[in-house]
């Protein structure tokens, strides 16, 4: 923070945003000084992207009723209603998805829509619009900008021939090539990069800060924050948990603040009897090639009748384990279920081995949206165990009465809010859809139930219902549960042991009552 002047380049005060009745961001305030690197971190759904959309004037904010609170740029209050305005005020943004034109050179992309122009005979007669693009000038300017960033990249290279990391550099170069840039917003700049590319991006960020440009770094990689940021703001459930100088905190503390949510689950009964030591599922050197959640060699033993929690920060691979066991993403390694080797990469064999899965990707994997509640709940049992059929001549016919009776039972038990068993699942609310997903997994009468992020994006009532159901099935029917979640409070409440995944491997296995510090430390990648 060399250019420490008294006026912050950006100051936001009590900013909030609601979609309908749902407040995704409330009462967030922070100041960013010139040249400061300010990190914003939080789990998925914490409100990071909403905040960013507000700052950059994205149309989605205006179309849904705007935001509350005040934004000051260099001390002057202003409302940003479009990206053009944001750019005019000196805010640059590098999006997570690259916004580059593949068939253009790096230089042309950097100068896109701001091309230097030259007069020619026609333009002298017909005016501005007929001017020639000065390609030589584009080359000189854009190369200078790239050099300023300190990356070795020729501006003449076609963008589509560049490695991903270099595309990121071009994006950053395009933003800082704008003359009045004061604040650069980087959205997850290192999420898709290799380690060495990430290092270069972080180096560039530091360099920008030395030039006096403030950087707003949105990330959930704590390592990046510790390395470059001056200040860090932790968001959780749309609220500003804390803004603190990075020097005054630790990786463990940040992780803990990101996930430490309070949830009242006192209704879940504690386990009374002691668990057997028998191992029902074990994996060795288990690797799953799931984009964004790669598992890079996990060894894990699951004991009979326990609820094993799998926790960790987003992108570290915790989600990949259950998906790999279910055969939904390419997996390698060794998995043994009830003493028999599990045939990997085949959902059918996983079901036959006694596994059932409630996916974290409810919208895509959870249910058939246009089929009825009754049919969704019954489908897994129908297709795997031939249940719910009558024999009629040479056709097995669906026994609709039993299918509906069965659905009614679950609708009552789980309090699914619906017009009846014939309602299409796609028209239910998220929480009720989740209840249908749980019911349909239970219809497989699994011996081992894999549940991933069962409470993501659902209301509190549905959350409690889902968690209680999982606990009850575990206690009453002795179903072993592998429970993957980003929410620490949830893991602590329901699990017997919690395995923390970091960088695709198990960094630690802790008892549910381990201290938050210990769990935070494991999440940030410290191994015992």
């Amino acid at each position: 923070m060399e250019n420490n002047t008294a006026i912050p380049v950006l100051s936001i005060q009590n900013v909030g945003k609601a979609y309908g009745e749902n407040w995704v961001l409330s009462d967030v305030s922070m100041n960013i000084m010139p040249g400061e690197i300010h990190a914003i971190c939080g789990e998925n759904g914490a409100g990071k992207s909403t905040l960013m959309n507000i700052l950059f004037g994205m149309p989605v904010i205006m179309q849904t009723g705007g935001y509350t609170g005040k934004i000051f740029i260099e001390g002057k209050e202003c409302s940003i209603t479009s990206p053009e305005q944001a750019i005019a005020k000196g805010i640059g943004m590098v999006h997570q998805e690259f916004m580059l034109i593949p068939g253009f050179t790096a230089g042309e992309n950097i100068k896109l829509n701001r091309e230097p122009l030259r007069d020619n005979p026609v333009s002298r007669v017909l005016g501005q619009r007929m001017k020639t693009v000065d390609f030589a000038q584009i080359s000189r300017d854009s190369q200078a900008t790239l050099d300023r960033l300190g990356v070795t990249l020729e501006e003449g290279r076609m963008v589509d021939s560049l490695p991903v990391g270099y595309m990121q550099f071009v994006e950053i170069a395009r933003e800082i090539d704008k003359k009045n840039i004061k604040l650069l917003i980087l959205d997850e700049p290192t999420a898709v990069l290799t380690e060495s590319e990430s290092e270069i991006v972080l180096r560039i960020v530091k360099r920008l800060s030395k030039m006096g440009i403030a950087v707003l770094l949105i990330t959930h990689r704590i390592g990046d924050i510790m390395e470059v940021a001056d200040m860090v703001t932790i968001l959780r459930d749309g609220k500003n948990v804390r803004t603190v100088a990075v020097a005054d905190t630790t990786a463990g503390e940040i992780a803990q603040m990101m996930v430490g949510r309070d949830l009242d689950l006192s209704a879940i009964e504690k386990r009374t009897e002691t668990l057997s030591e028998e191992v029902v599922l074990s994996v060795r050197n288990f690797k799953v090639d799931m984009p964004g959640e790669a598992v890079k060699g996990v060894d894990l033993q699951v004991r009979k009748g326990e609820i094993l929690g799998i926790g960790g920060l987003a992108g570290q691979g915790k989600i990949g384990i259950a998906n790999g066991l279910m055969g939904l993403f390419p997996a390698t390694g060794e998995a043994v279920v009830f003493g028999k080797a599990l045939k990997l990469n085949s959902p059918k064999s996983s079901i036959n081995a006694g596994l059932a899965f409630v996916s974290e990707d409810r919208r895509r994997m959870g249910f058939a949206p246009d089929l009825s509640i009754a049919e969704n709940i019954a489908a897994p049992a129908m297709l795997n165990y031939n249940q719910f059929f009558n024999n009629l001549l040479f056709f097995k016919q669906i026994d609709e009465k039993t299918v509906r009776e069965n659905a009614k039972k679950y609708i009552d038990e789980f309090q699914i809010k619906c017009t009846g068993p014939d309602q299409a699942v796609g028209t239910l609310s998220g929480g009720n859809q989740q209840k249908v997903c749980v019911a349909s997994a239970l219809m497989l009468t699994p011996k081992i139930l894999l549940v991933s992020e069962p409470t993501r994006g659902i209301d509190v009532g549905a959350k409690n219902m889902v968690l209680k159901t999982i606990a009850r099935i575990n206690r009453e029917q002795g179903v072993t549960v592998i429970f993957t979640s980003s929410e620490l409070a949830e893991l602590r409440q329901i699990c017997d042991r919690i395995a923390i995944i970091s960088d695709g491997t198990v960094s630690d296995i802790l008892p549910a009552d381990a201290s938050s510090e210990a769990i935070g430390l494991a999440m940030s990648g410290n191994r015992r």
Partner: protein
Amino acid sequence: METIKRGVRKFGMPRIIIIAFIIVILIGALLEGQDMAALISDSLVRVGQNMLLAVAMLPCILVGAGLNMGLAIGIVCGLLAGLLSVQFELVSWAGFLAACAMALLFGSIAGVLYGRLMNMVKGSEMLIGNYLGSAVVYLMCMFWFAAPFTNSTIIWPMGGTGVRTTVPVSDYYEKILNNFLAFQIGKVTVPTGLFLFVGAVCAVVYLFTRSRTGTVLRVAGNNQAFAGMIGVNVNRARIIGIALSTMLAAMGIVVYAQSYGFYQTYEGPLTMAFTPMAAILLGGATMRSVKIRHAVIGSFLIQILLTTALPVCNQLFPESNLSEVFRIIISNGIILYALSQAGGEGR
């Protein structure tokens, strides 16, 4: 009032409009002094004659591959089967049933290949199916041109090789279904056999959709990822659906020909797919939900409309030949409307 509103919503606006339109046309026909009994008899025949082609759309939509734009593939299989039955001089029921059996056989083979191709182009089935259908029709044009048929009914009257553009079945099994157990109510003829046969096929398809395999197809068609997770072989399910669709189309054209009196070869199958598509969409099917009643209701509505509207229009504009133009405008208009609105019967 509320119940009427709900009833209207459940039945769907497009169907109400078309029914109103049909009523207007029938009143027009009465005023013009058209032969009403003949109009109604014709309508009944046309409904039965075209229904299986509309039913053929169902399995394809069921597995999530959309409308079977490549219906012509099934139709040429049926044509080949029909011509073979004529070539072998199989007459009456033997000829018709042999044609149906061969149509199902050829249809299943072509359908499996078609289904495999569709699995390579997931998401653009309708686009690719359309081009593939055209390609197959023109490829078969070359076949018809060179095919070694010898029956004089099939080859050109002047002899040599090559199939005629229309092969009559009048000496073989023309109207064998239509005339079976046919009876008259007043001057209206009811083609009982045709309705029995088509009804039986619809019943089998209905039972199929409620069978285990039908459930597999429906789940796979509605959400592939979910189906995969609960252990369904999605690609296999899609091949079954598309093959069934092709088989039904193949048999459908045999039923069509026995009633119509001709097999139309060469470019005949090209435009055959559009009316059945319009029928099932008009009946209330959407790309996400389809039932056998959609095909049945839709066939009734569109065929009655097309059959009754033409004589009335021709009377109003005597100098014009509106029939084909009218059919194409109505069919494509309905397809366009249904695919852009995507609103089927109310839930």
